[in-house]
C-alpha cells in the first residue's frame, strides 16, 4: 500500500477533500473513496466513455486521469446534473425517449451530451453522433439516444 496524498477539489459544486494513492485514477477515487458510483468502469482504457465526467468543464474519461490531478480542479459527475431535485432536460428526454436499456452507459452519455449542448446548443444529428462517438452503448443502437439529445437541445433552446 502506497502513501496517501491529500487532495482538495470541487465536485458537483461542493469543496471536497480526500486522500488517495498516486496510482488511483479519478474514477477509482470517485467510486471507491467518495462513494460516487454513477460513473462506471466499462473498459478502464478510454474506449467506452462510461466513466465520463466534466473536468474543468471538459468531458474526460475519469479512468485516464489520476486522482491527484483533481487538486484545485472543478469536477462534475452524473450525480450533479440534476439540480434542486429536478431532472435536467437531458435526463428527462432520456426517460421519455426510452434512450436507455441496461443503463450502464447512460451516466457517461448524459455527461458527454451535457458538455455538447453547453457548447453547441443547436447540435445537429451528425454533430451529436461525432461528439458522442467516445461513448459506447451496446443496447440501443444509438437511435433513441441521439433523438433524446436532439429533443433536449430543442427544449433547452426554446426554454
Amino acid at each position, binding site marked *: *500500500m*502506497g*502513501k496517501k*496524498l491529500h487532495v482538495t477539489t470541487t465536485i458537483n459544486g461542493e469543496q471536497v477533500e480526500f486522500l488517495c*494513492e*498516486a*496510482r488511483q*485514477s479519478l474514477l477509482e477515487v470517485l467510486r471507491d473513496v467518495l462513494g460516487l458510483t454513477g460513473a462506471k468502469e466499462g473498459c*478502464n*482504457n*478510454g*474506449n467506452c*466513455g462510461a466513466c*465520463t465526467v466534466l*473536468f474543468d468543464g*471538459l*468531458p*474526460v*474519461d475519469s*479512468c*485516464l*486521469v*489520476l486522482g*491527484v*490531478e483533481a487538486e484545485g480542479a472543478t469536477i462534475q459527475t452524473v450525480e450533479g446534473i440534476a439540480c434542486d431535485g429536478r431532472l435536467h432536460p437531458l435526463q428527462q428526454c432520456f426517460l421519455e425517449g426510452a434512450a436507455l436499456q441496461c443503463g450502464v452507459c447512460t451516466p457517461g452519455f448524459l455527461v*458527454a451530451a451535457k*458538455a*455538447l449542448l453547453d457548447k453547441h446548443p443547436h447540435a445537429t444529428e451528425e454533430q451529436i453522433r*461525432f*461528439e*458522442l*462517438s*467516445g*461513448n459506447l452503448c451496446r443496447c440501443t443502437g444509438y437511435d433513441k439516444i441521439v433523438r433524446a439529445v436532439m429533443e433536449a437541445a430543442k427544449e433547452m433552446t426554446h426554454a
Partner: protein
Amino acid sequence: MKDFEYAAAATLDEAVSLLAARGERAKILAGGTDIIVQLREGLREADLVVDVKKIPEIMTYRFDPASGLSLGAAVPCYRIYEDGDVAAAYPALADAARIIGGWQIQSRASIGGNLCNSSPAADSIPALIALGAACKIAGPEGMRSVPVEQFCTSPGKNVLRRGELLVSIQFPPPAAKSGSHYLRFIPRNEMDIAVVGAGAWLRMQDGVIAEGRIGLAAVAPTPKLAEQASRFLAGKPASEETFRQAGELARQSASPISDMRGPAQYRLHLVGVLTRRALAKAAERAGA
C-alpha cells in the same frame, strides 16, 4: 499497477532534474491518455510520475502568422481545432487533433504526448512531418531541436535521452498558397487506430507545385517522411495523375506488417489511395 510517487514539476529545470535522477523509472505525465493505460496494463513501469502540466513552457500556445506556431508539448488537442486561425494555418494539424480518440481524449491528450508515445500509427505525426515541424527538447545539457521525422526511433521509442523532455513543437509560418491535409483509414468511423495514415502539405507557385511533403503512419516501425514521393512533387501540376504517381512512390517507401488492424498487402494498397486523397485535399486547400 504498483504505487508510484507523483510530482507536479513547476519548472523545466525541476522536471529535468527529476527525470535525470530517476532515468527509466520516471515517466512523464501530460494528458495521461497513453501513459496511464500503459502503466495500468504493465506495458511500462514507473517509480515516479512527473506531471508536466504546471510548467509554463510546456503549456505555451503562441501563434503568429509571421513567426509560426509554438505548441507546448502538453497543450490538449481541442485547443488546436477550436482555434480557427491555427486550424486555417495548419489544417493537417487540426485534422489530426480532431480524430485522436473521442472528445474525452481530446480534452486531455496532446500532440506532444502523441509524439512521445511514438506509436508507428500515431495520427498527429504524419501531419507534423508534412508541415515540417521541429521538436524542442530540454535536457541536462540545455535545449536542442530535432526535425519531427527524426524524433521516433522504433515502436514506442524516441530520441529523448535520460533527463530530457519534449517542451514544444515549432511550426514554420504558413506559406502563401500552401495547404495541407491529414487522413487515415480506419474500419470504424471514429475511435480507431489508423490502418494507414497519410499527411500531405503542398505549396503552389506559378500554377505548379513548388514543393510538397508527405508523411505516413502505420507503414513502418516509425511514422515517416515519404522522401522520394515528396521530392517528386516539385514542379509538377496539381493533377490527379501527379497525385497517383506520388501515391505509387509513397507505396514503394512503405514496409508495413500484418496484424489485427490489417494485412500488409492491404496497407500497401491503402498507402497509394490515401496519399493521393491527402494530396488532392491539400491542393484544394492550397487553392490549386
